[in-house]
Structures are given as structure tokens and as C-alpha cells.
């Protein structure tokens, strides 16, 4: 099959994976000891996947799909936060992927951190500097959540790259 068609298919599949992960995350109860509304960022797995196995535009499309899902499920504020966080984290991870001395954990943590940064920025534009009170906790949390997503990508990527989906090109 043509390379372009393959990449569109991969992007579509990864977008679907991102949506399922977002949905699973919505069903998880709020963790009691952290901020209300804080999430694991599981759907970052799909973005990281698209970035390291397809291309930057593909990862951005996955982000956009995630944001539209957030718009439908949780409203316009969620859309803006998802989009801004997603694009910022994708760009950060894209830059880090160019360096061989950076491991998956580093990329995952940076991605989670930038996702939080983008979301806090949108929240700041929406309200006022009060939201920066959340920054410290979110930054620390991104070390944990980023490592989780990085670990998942590290385990899954070699297996998926061997699968039918990536055989032809």
C-alpha cells in the first residue's frame, strides 16, 4: 500500500486509541490525595506513539482529535486546555526525540510537564494568577504520570512496530 495511505491509517488508529484512553481515564475516580480534576494523561501514550512511529503532523492530528473529544464530553474550556496542552507537549517531545541521549522517561516527563504548562496557561488566561497555585503539584505529578506513559510506550513500541500495521513501509 502507498506510504501516505498507511500513515493516514496509523494516525486514525492512534486517534481512536487516544479517545479510548481518554474515556477510560474519565471513568477513573478522582485520586483523593491530589488536586481534583488531575489526570494520569494516559492518552499521551497515543501522542507519543504517533510522534515516534509516524510523524509530527500525525501526532498533532491525534491531539486535535483528543481536543474535539474533550469539547464533546466536557465543554469548550476543556477543548482549549486539551488543545493547548497537547500541542505544547507534542512540540516538546518532538524536539527531545531528535536527541539520542534522551530516554523515554525524559521525553514522557517533559511531555507531561509541558501539557500541564499549556493547560495552566489557558486557565490563567481564563481566570487570573490564582491558578499558578496548582503549578507545583502538577509539576511534581508530571514526573510520575510522564514515567508511566513513557514506560508504556517503551514496552509497546517495539511490539507494535513489528506488527502488520508497520510492515509494508
Amino acid at each position, binding site marked *: 500500500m502507498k506510504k501516505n495511505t498507511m500513515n493516514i491509517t496509523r494516525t486514525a488508529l492512534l486517534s481512536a486509541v487516544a479517545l479510548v484512553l481518554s474515556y477510560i481515564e474519565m471513568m477513573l475516580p478522582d485520586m483523593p490525595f491530589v488536586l481534583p480534576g488531575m489526570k494520569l494523561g494516559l492518552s499521551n501514550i497515543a501522542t507519543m506513539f504517533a510522534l515516534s512511529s509516524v510523524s509530527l503532523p500525525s501526532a498533532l492530528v491525534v491531539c486535535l482529535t483528543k481536543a474535539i473529544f474533550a469539547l464533546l464530553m466536557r465543554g469548550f474550556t476543556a477543548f482549549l486546555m486539551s488543545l493547548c496542552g497537547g500541542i505544547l507537549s507534542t512540540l516538546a517531545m518532538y524536539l527531545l526525540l531528535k536527541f539520542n541521549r534522551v530516554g523515554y522517561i525524559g521525553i514522557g516527563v517533559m511531555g507531561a510537564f509541558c501539557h500541564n504548562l499549556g493547560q495552566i496557561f489557558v486557565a490563567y488566561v*481564563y*481566570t487570573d494568577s490564582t491558578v499558578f497555585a496548582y503549578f507545583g503539584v502538577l509539576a511534581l505529578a508530571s514526573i510520575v504520570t510522564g514515567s508511566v506513559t513513557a514506560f508504556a510506550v517503551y514496552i509497546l513500541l517495539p511490539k507494535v512496530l513489528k506488527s502488520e500495521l508497520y510492515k509494508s513501509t
Partner: protein
Amino acid sequence: MKNQKRKLFAAFDVVIIVMVIVAAAFAFLSQFNTSDSDLTCVIRANGEVVHKVSLDNVSGSQIYTVHNVNVKISHECVSVSSSDCPDKLCENTGEISRGGQSIVCLPNKVSVTLVCEENAVDAVVG
């Protein structure tokens, strides 16, 4: 395929994690003046201060309604008792009682912050 040789954890990752921890530490240090006396509750909507209430002057509890968010202020603590937002994150934040703590309702663009009196320099309205 590219990136197949990438390690799970490489030396540069330590640098990234340390950077994130430093950013977090900086955020914590700049924010916490955790005193629980002389607290003032500042309610903002669209970034503008709408109400400013000293907790010492409150007896029983009072409800302030800003942009469909009901903020309940009592002598010891502040909480959002109800809001018409879809996610209810502000309600779920629960009660705050120390300086530097805050509750934010993003869909309604309302924020509630507790500040220590001596640090309160914003204009007083309401």
C-alpha cells in the same frame, strides 16, 4: 524504524527530572506563606476582584454568589457550596483554610483565594 535503540532511561533524563523538581520547588516556595490567622478571602471573576472578605469578620456562614458559583465563607474556612459548571471540580476541591490555598471554577471564570491580611494589596471592592 527509527528510535528503536532508544533507552528507557538515559543520563539526560536526570537533567529533565531535576529541572521539573526545581520548577516545582520554586512554585511552592513563592506561594506558601501558610499562616491561618488574619485570613482574607478574595473572590475574583474574569480576573477582577469582586469580593474581599476578612474571615475574622464572619460569624456563622455567608454565601456569596458570583457568576453562578456559590461561595460559602465561614469563620474558619471557605468552600464552593454549589456551582452550575459541568465538571464540579470547584465543589470537589472542598474546604480551604490556609493562606495561599485556592479554589478555581474554570468554566465560570471564578477564583477564590485565601490570603494573609498583610499581603493583601489588591483594591478593595464590595
